[in-house]
C-alpha cells in the first residue's frame, strides 16, 4: 500500500500561495484561496477518534460557512479513527453530535456550498458516516484505508477463521476493508493523483459534481454493490405506480 500523504503536504498542494488552515487536537479548520474565491476546510487528522466535542466543533464551522452566505465550497479532509468509543460520549448523546455534523454538511450542500470529501488516511464506522460520507463527492488519495471493521474483528463477530475471511476478501468487495473496496461500492467516487497539484483536481470535482446521489449507480457499474440501485429504483416505481393507480380510481 502506498504511504499516506501527510496533511501539510496536501494543504501545500491545494494552496501553493498559502492558506489559513490550522490543526489543533486532531481537528482541521480554516480556509484558503481557490479559483479567485475561498475554499473552506474542515477535517480530522492523525487517526483521531471523533467524539462529541470534535463533532460539535466541526459542525459549528460548517454552519459558519452557511451563515456567511455565498457559495463557498467546503472540503472535508479525513484521516480519522472510528467514533470515540466511551461511556461518556454515549451518555451525552454521541449519535446526535455525529448526525448533527452530517446534517450540517448536507444542509451546506443543499444551500449551494458544494461539499467535497478527501480521504487521505484511515476512517471507520460512525466517524466516516458523519464526515466523508456526508459530502456530495468523496475523493481519496492513494494510501487511504477506510474500513467499517477490521478483519480480525469481523472474524470475531462472524465466528469465521481469519484465513477464510482473507481469502473471501480477495473475491468480494462487499465486506472487506480497504480503499479499492470502497471505490467499487461507489462510496468513494474518484482517486486523485498525488503527483499533480490538488487545487485544480479539487476544483474540477466541484465543477463536475453530480446533482443527485449517484453512489448506487457507481456501485452497480463497478460491481461492488450489484443490486442496491435496482432495489431502490424498484421501490420508487412501485410507490409511484400505487399513486397513479389511486388517481385512476383503481
Amino acid at each position, binding site marked *: 500500500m502506498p504511504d499516506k500523504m501527510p496533511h501539510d503536504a496536501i494543504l501545500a498542494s491545494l494552496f501553493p500561495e498559502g492558506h489559513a488552515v490550522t490543526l489543533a487536537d486532531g481537528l482541521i479548520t480554516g480556509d484558503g484561496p481557490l479559483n479567485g474565491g475561498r475554499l473552506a476546510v474542515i477535517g480530522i487528522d492523525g487517526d483521531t477518534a471523533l467524539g462529541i466535542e470534535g463533532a460539535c466543533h466541526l459542525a459549528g464551522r460548517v454552519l459558519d460557512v452557511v451563515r456567511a452566505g455565498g457559495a463557498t465550497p467546503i472540503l472535508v479532509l479525513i484521516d480519522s479513527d472510528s467514533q470515540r468509543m466511551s461511556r461518556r460520549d454515549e451518555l451525552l*448523546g454521541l449519535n446526535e453530535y455525529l448526525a448533527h455534523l*452530517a446534517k450540517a454538511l448536507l444542509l451546506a450542500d443543499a444551500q449551494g456550498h458544494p461539499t467535497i470529501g478527501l480521504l487521505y488516511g484511515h476512517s471507520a464506522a*460512525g466517524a466516516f458516516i458523519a464526515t466523508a460520507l456526508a459530502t456530495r463527492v468523496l475523493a481519496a488519495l492513494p494510501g487511504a484505508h477506510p474500513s467499517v471493521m477490521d478483519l480480525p474483528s469481523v472474524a470475531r463477530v462472524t465466528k469465521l477463521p481469519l484465513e477464510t475471511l482473507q481469502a473471501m476478501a480477495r473475491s468480494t468487495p462487499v465486506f472487506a476493508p480497504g480503499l479499492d473496496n470502497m471505490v467499487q461500492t461507489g*462510496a468513494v467516487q474518484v482517486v486523485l493523483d498525488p503527483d499533480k497539484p490538488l487545487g485544480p483536481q479539487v476544483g474540477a470535482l466541484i465543477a463536475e459534481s453530480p446533482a443527485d446521489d449517484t453512489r448506487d449507480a457507481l456501485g452497480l457499474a463497478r460491481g461492488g454493490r450489484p*443490486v442496491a440501485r435496482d*432495489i431502490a429504483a424498484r421501490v420508487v416505481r412501485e410507490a409511484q405506480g400505487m*399513486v397513479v393507480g389511486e388517481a385512476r380510481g383503481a
Partner: protein
Amino acid sequence: MDWKPVTLSPSPLDQSWYEASARARLAGLLDADSFQEFIGPEQRMMSPHLPLFDLPRAFDDGMIVGHGLLEAQPVLVAAQEGRFMGGAFGEIHGAKLVGLLRAALAVKPSAVLILFDTGGVRLQEANAGETAIAEIMRAIAIARAAGIPVIGLIGGRAGCYGGGGLVAGTCSRLVISEGGRLSVSGPEVIETNRGAEEFDSRDRALVWRTMGGKHRRLLGAADAFVDDTIGAFRAAALAAIPAAPAFDLATLQAEQARLEARLDRFGDCADATEIWGRLGVDDPTAVPGLTTEAFDALLDRLPEGPHHAR
C-alpha cells in the same frame, strides 16, 4: 425495568411493541388493512452476499417498506425486523429504505415513518451497509427539506445502534419507549474495545440509564417517551407529524446551541443520575422505576425548555 405483562386483550393496539414482529408493528400502527408493501416477500429479493457466509436469508432481507394510512393520512413506512440478523443494514435492506425516501419526493406523503430495530451495519455486507446509511441520511435531508416529516420510532429488541443511531439523529422527530436504546457504540462494543472498567455490558441497569428511552427523553435526544404498546407508538407518531421542524439553517443553528449547551452543563457528569439531578429531578435514583404516567408528570415539573431542534 417496568415490563408490561402479556396482554389478554385481542386488540393489536394493546400488544407490546418490543415483543411484536416488524410486520405486526406495522399492522397495528397503521389504519386496519391499509398497508401495501413494496417489493414484498413474494418477490424473494434476498441478500446476494449471505450465502458466502453460509448464513440463512430472509425473503424481505429484514426490511419491510410500503404505504399505508395513519388516521386516514397517507404515510410511507419502513420497519426493520430485529430478529433477522439483528435488524442490521445490508445491501438490499438499506436500498429499500433509500428507495422509500426517494419515493417520498414524488408521492408526497404526510410523513415517512421509520420503525428502527437495528444493531447497525451488517458486517457480512459492511461496505454496502455503510454506504446505504450515508445514502439514507442524504435522502432524509432531501425529504425533510421538501417539507416531508421523517419520524423515527424506537422500541425494538435490537435497539437502535451504530449507523442506525446516526440515521435516527437525522430524523425530524423521535419517539422512544423504555425498551428502546439509542446509541452509536453498543455496550458490548465499548467493553470489547475499552474493557469492562469503561463499560460493563452485563450491568443492565447501567445500559438502560445510559442509552435507554427515559435518559434519551430527559436529555432531549428523543421528543416523546411512550408505553411499550403499539397503540402508544401510534398516538405519538400522529402527534409528532405536525410538530416536525423544518430542515434549514435556523433549525441546525438551534441544534448547535442545544448541543453546545449540553456539553457545558453536563460534560463533567459520570453517570446519567448526575445529569438528571442537574436537570432538577429530586430523586434521580427513582427515575428508572417510574411509570410512563409518573415520568410524564416529572417532565412537566422540570424547568427545561423544549429540545426540539433536530
